[in-house]
């Protein structure tokens, strides 16, 4: 079967505009991360960076299945910068985090993508893995009490799925039939620990079986397939059919953080996954289906470059935090969070 725009529209319900928007977000994610790496090398980033190279596909595709106009909320992990961008976080907001600026969303108190804005529909994680599953259960539970038709989506890794918080949250959300999609990113490793040392299960989606949720596994580097699976899960959630545990199979193409050279990953494996790069694959689909021309893709990259030039510039010009502010905004009532920055 030859791919055409019509066949994609029929199969996935995605218009040309939305397909190109996905492409834009894929490129935006990858390029923004490259900017962050280069700022890091210049010594401008405070703290570490955690790459999502190779995982932009599932991040963007899953978030694209949400409907932020209906109040949907996504809670990404550190390697889901793409989800945040789809939800409407601005590159400059993410850059200000990495540069620890006083006018960042967290005012320099927190790092990388740990940012929240419910109006736009996102909430970054806390570091303890698993914690966001119960929290997002509560977010969707509140949505239901409030009569909203919102859906929640929360990401967890193959490693994070071993936490008790994950297990409690999954079971709790399932038995309460909450409109929550839990995405397990099986990217082969948790820091240096391969998934075979994390669990004997071969399909992480099978955790769903034990609690009565719906489970599904999808090739996370296939953007359209991932979108389709995420969309099914979101639709089920919105229809009141409860929790889906969606396993996206992908690969972490860089070490855990910049200092980790990934020596524990066999070279062939990295080579193999390079061939499966989600952005390359997606672009081939767009070209093959005649959705976009090489010029269209170049135009998108040019747009991304322009936006990021401006964003980096703005971030670097952003003010540093005021030292004395460290003492404020712990509790309600001191006005800190009402002051403009």
């Amino acid at each position: 079967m030859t791919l055409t725009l019509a066949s994609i529209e029929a199969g996935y319900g995605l218009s040309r505009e939305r397909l190109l928007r996905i492409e834009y977000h894929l490129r935006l994610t990858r390029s923004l991360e490259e900017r962050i790496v280069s700022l890091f090398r210049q010594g401008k980033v405070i703290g570490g960076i955690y790459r999502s190279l190779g995982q932009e596909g599932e991040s963007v595709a899953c978030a694209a299945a949400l409907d932020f106009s209906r109040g949907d909320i996504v809670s990404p992990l550190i390697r889901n910068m793409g989800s945040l961008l789809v939800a409407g976080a601005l590159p400059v907001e993410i850059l200000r985090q990495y540069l620890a600026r006083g006018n960042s969303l967290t005012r320099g108190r927190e790092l990388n993508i740990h940012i929240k804005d419910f109006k736009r529909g996102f909430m970054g994680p806390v570091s303890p893995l698993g914690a966001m599953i119960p929290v997002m259960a509560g977010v969707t539970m509140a949505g239901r009490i409030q009569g909203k038709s919102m859906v929640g989506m929360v990401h967890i890794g193959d490693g994070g799925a071993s936490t008790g918080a994950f297990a409690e949250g999954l079971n709790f959300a399932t038995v309460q039939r909450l409109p929550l999609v839990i995405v397990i990113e099986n990217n082969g490793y948790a820091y240096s620990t391969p998934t075979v040392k994390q669990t004997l299960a071969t399909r992480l989606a099978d955790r769903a079986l034990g609690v009565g949720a719906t489970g599904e596994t999808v090739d996370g580097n296939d953007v359209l397939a991932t979108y389709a699976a995420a969309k099914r899960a979101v639709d089920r959630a919105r229809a009141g059919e409860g929790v889906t545990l969606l396993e996206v199979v992908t690969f972490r193409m860089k070490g855990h953080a910049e200092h980790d050279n990934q020596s524990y990953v066999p070279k062939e494996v990295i080579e193999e996954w390079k061939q499966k790069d989600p952005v390359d694959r997606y672009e081939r689909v767009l070209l093959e289906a005649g959705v976009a021309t090489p010029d269209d893709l170049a135009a998108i990259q040019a747009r991304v470059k322009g936006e990021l030039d401006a964003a980096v510039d703005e971030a670097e010009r952003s003010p540093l935090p005021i030292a004395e502010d460290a003492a404020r905004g712990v509790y309600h009532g001191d006005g800190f969070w009402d002051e403009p920055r």
Partner: protein
Amino acid sequence: MSENLIPKAGGETLYIDAIRQAMREEMHADPRVFLIGEDVGVFGGAFKTSSGLIEEFGATRVIDTPISEVAITGAACGAALMGMRPIAEMQFINFITVTFDMLSSFAATSRYRGNGGCPIVVRGPAGGGVRGGPFHSGNPEAYFFNIPGLKIVYPGTAYDAKGLLKAAIRDEDPVLYLEHKFLYRRIKEDLPVDDYVVPIGKAKLRREGRDLTIITYGAMIYLAEEAAEELAKDGVSVEILDMRSILPFDEEAMLESVAKTNRAIVLYEAPLTGGVGAEFAARIAEKAFDWLDAPIKRVASLDTPVPYAPQLEDFHRPSKAKLIAAAKELLRY
């Protein structure tokens, strides 16, 4: 909901009923308030603290959960961020340790790190004297006392139980509310019919005195009173300050009292070392030094887990005898 639809209670009220009244009235007054926990709904709670609430408010606002303290408190946090006012019950407060991370990492830091205020109440039966053994007699307030962003209260009277719970529910920040299970059905007070709150962070002077201040909270206020009565027979005039709120606590009231009596005993039910009372003593030692005529004494439980047998538990706990001995030592000073 209009004011006059809120059912008013009051009158002779047990400590435990004060807690239920507070939840009920707040749930009437504010549709954002809901209760979540193990067996809190159909069964009305292991101690029947929430009995009748599910009948009145339905299962969407009185939520029975799996045995999952992390999920219960985590869901409360998520709901709070969405504008709700959850009350999460721990069946026994000991099990709050299971979800220590959710409270310390997520809830306590939420506002500070720009994630928004996280106004949850986590409440549950605390305290010993009920032969509950090591896992059902806990006083965990000190575990959470070095975690900025949390608030902690521990009422000793029915009046405070109601007023502090209302304040906790209305508070914009996460509050740990410890209720003393020994007091549940042993304390009965005449409560006002009208709505009131007891502000978090304000101590209550329970007894005025001249010679010595006992600074305490929770069920220990009654032990302090017993000791004060006995000491009064010897002409010793004891002042008793019920802190009620632990984080933040009423430093001013504490210092004022010590400035007057010049002698202080800090009394608490948890083990001595690392208890909340250490902070009270440290503040006095820094800020009321000039007024002190004697060392600051502490009376607390032994540095052991809570044993089960009555003989052991009684020996473990602070006693009137220990309190009076400490007082006499200070007075001789």
